[in-house]
């Protein structure tokens, strides 16, 4: 598999506050990768650095062989799209206009949509199963619908890499399943690399191609879900009072 994105001895954080250092990670075309770790361990920081929203403290992020952080904002926006956590308060914007915003890196000075741009918007809406929402205001959408729309916007951006910060938070089980199936379809049919953070261990184990574990005071671990279980890495990442790992079912259980 071809590596789309590659980090080389990457250190992330804010100012003098190093959150994680020495990250060497490849993201490949067609794979869906879950980013797992406890709250505050730096998942969002990593995603934002990979999207170019944060400068790395050290090391580089290479995408298509180019240093992501040396590209202009406009060039970078053609390489990586991000879906942030929560829903933006946009008020009077309909779903189609929001998805069309994803075309901004490809449109000219005035943001006028070409035939190609319109087709990309329609395709993104269709694969999200959100065509019927076209003219609905984002504020009037349910949480599940809004999340699909924001992912469709990232899809319309037509980037090889899509990053998502907790795309299944606040969603019920059927919606979580729908979102992750959508992400998997994006990775497979679009041959994109999809990396998303989640607290949903079971879903990550069942559906993802690879798991990236972020832990405090330990290097980044990544590998297949089976390896994560077999090596005990996953269990250690969440070890603490009140939970234990059940090897029979491969799940964490709460202890009273």
């Amino acid at each position, binding site marked *: 598999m071809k590596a789309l994105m590659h980090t080389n001895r990457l250190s992330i954080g804010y100012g003098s506050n190093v959150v994680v250092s020495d990250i060497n990670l490849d993201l490949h075309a067609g794979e869906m990768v879950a980013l797992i770790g406890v709250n505050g361990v730096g998942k969002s920081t990593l995603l934002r650095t990979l999207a170019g929203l944060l400068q790395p403290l050290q090391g580089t992020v290479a995408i298509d062989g180019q240093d992501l952080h040396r590209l*202009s904002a*406009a060039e970078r926006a053609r390489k*990586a799209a991000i879906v942030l956590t929560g829903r*933006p*308060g946009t008020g009077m914007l309909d779903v189609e206009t929001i998805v069309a915003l994803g075309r901004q890196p490809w449109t000219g*000075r005035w943001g006028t949509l070409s035939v190609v741009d319109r087709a990309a918007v329609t395709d993104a809406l269709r694969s999200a199963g959100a065509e019927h929402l076209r003219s609905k205001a984002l504020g009037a959408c349910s949480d599940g619908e809004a999340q699909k729309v924001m992912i469709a916007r990232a899809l319309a951006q037509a980037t090889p890499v899509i990053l998502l910060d907790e795309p299944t938070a606040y969603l019920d089980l059927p919606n979580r399943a729908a979102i992750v199936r959508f992400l998997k379809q994006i990775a497979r049919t679009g041959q994109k690399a999809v990396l998303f953070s989640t607290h949903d261990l079971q879903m990550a184990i069942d559906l993802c191609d690879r798991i990236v574990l972020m832990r405090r005071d330990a290097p980044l671990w990544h590998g297949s879900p089976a390896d994560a279980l077999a090596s005990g890495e996953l269990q250690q990442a969440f070890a603490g009072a009140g939970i234990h790992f059940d090897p029979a079912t491969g799940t964490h259980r709460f202890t009273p």
Partner: protein
Amino acid sequence: MRGSGTWSLIFALAALALALLGLATGSVHVPFSDVWSSLTQPGSSGTFTTIVRQVRLPEVITAATAGAGLAASGLIMQTLFRNPLAGPSVLGISSGASLGVALVMLAQPLWMMLPVPREVMVIGASLAGAIAVLMLIVLADKRVGDGITLLIIGLMVGYLCSAVINVLQTASSAQALKDYIRWGMGSFAGVAIQRAGWLVLPVLLGLLSSLALIKPLNSLLLGEDYARSMGTNVQRTRRWAIWTTGLLAGTITAFCGPIAFLGLATPHVARMFIRTNDHRLLMPATMLLGMALALGCDLLVRTSGSDLPLPLNAVTSLLGAPVVLWVILGGKRWVSSDRP
């Protein structure tokens, strides 16, 4: 929401109709046929022609220019600060411009020896005041990041500016004071046709610059992080937006006085009709509606029936303040005030 361009057409027609009405009405009624002939026939003369050309035409041009400019600057500020209550008058930008103008008008003896035309001095001082306050607001916005606090800061800046102006007033001549107070009530009538270029050209530049901001402003509707991830240079956009709003609000304030509410209220009224925040539709519609509203206010000022014209600011406040109340009480009509 498609095809909302029709609203822009309606606003444009309304502005045109109000402009023609503005040329015809006033203390002396000029029949439309005479309005037409004095505009189209260069050789025509007579009382009606003089009234239309020398008095009413500059007033109509000033109102249309100022209305479009203030409305555009209000819209840019509302998107930039993600605050539905942003506008040149409420954030203290007009107050900053007023302070600049007061320094020139009231402390005249100090400037008399400078070999600079008065217009240039007034515009320059007004621009400097507007942009200084804008930069202060941007700094405050980064620090506090909440809409209501920003509004209070704007209010305080306004109080500070008026305090300094009050001090200046006590030390100025009676005539200068009178001129300044009349300017402060706001008026579209004070610009002679020979000087109109000083107002129209900078505002035209500001309007073109506002149109060029449409694409980055749209991306900012999703918040700064999303805007950046979609290729917008947020830093540059912010700087550009500040200079544009400063140029618009500063120039207009220099000529027409600090006009209340027009910049804040117009984008909301435009949204009420076209029902979208998409700047590709909202920006031109807001400019045209601003024109129409300013021309309408000017018409009310002149046809109040009394010998003295109504103060323009009284009219714009009577119309604008309820819009602000509606935005606050109607609350979540457009939710851009909450931050991600």
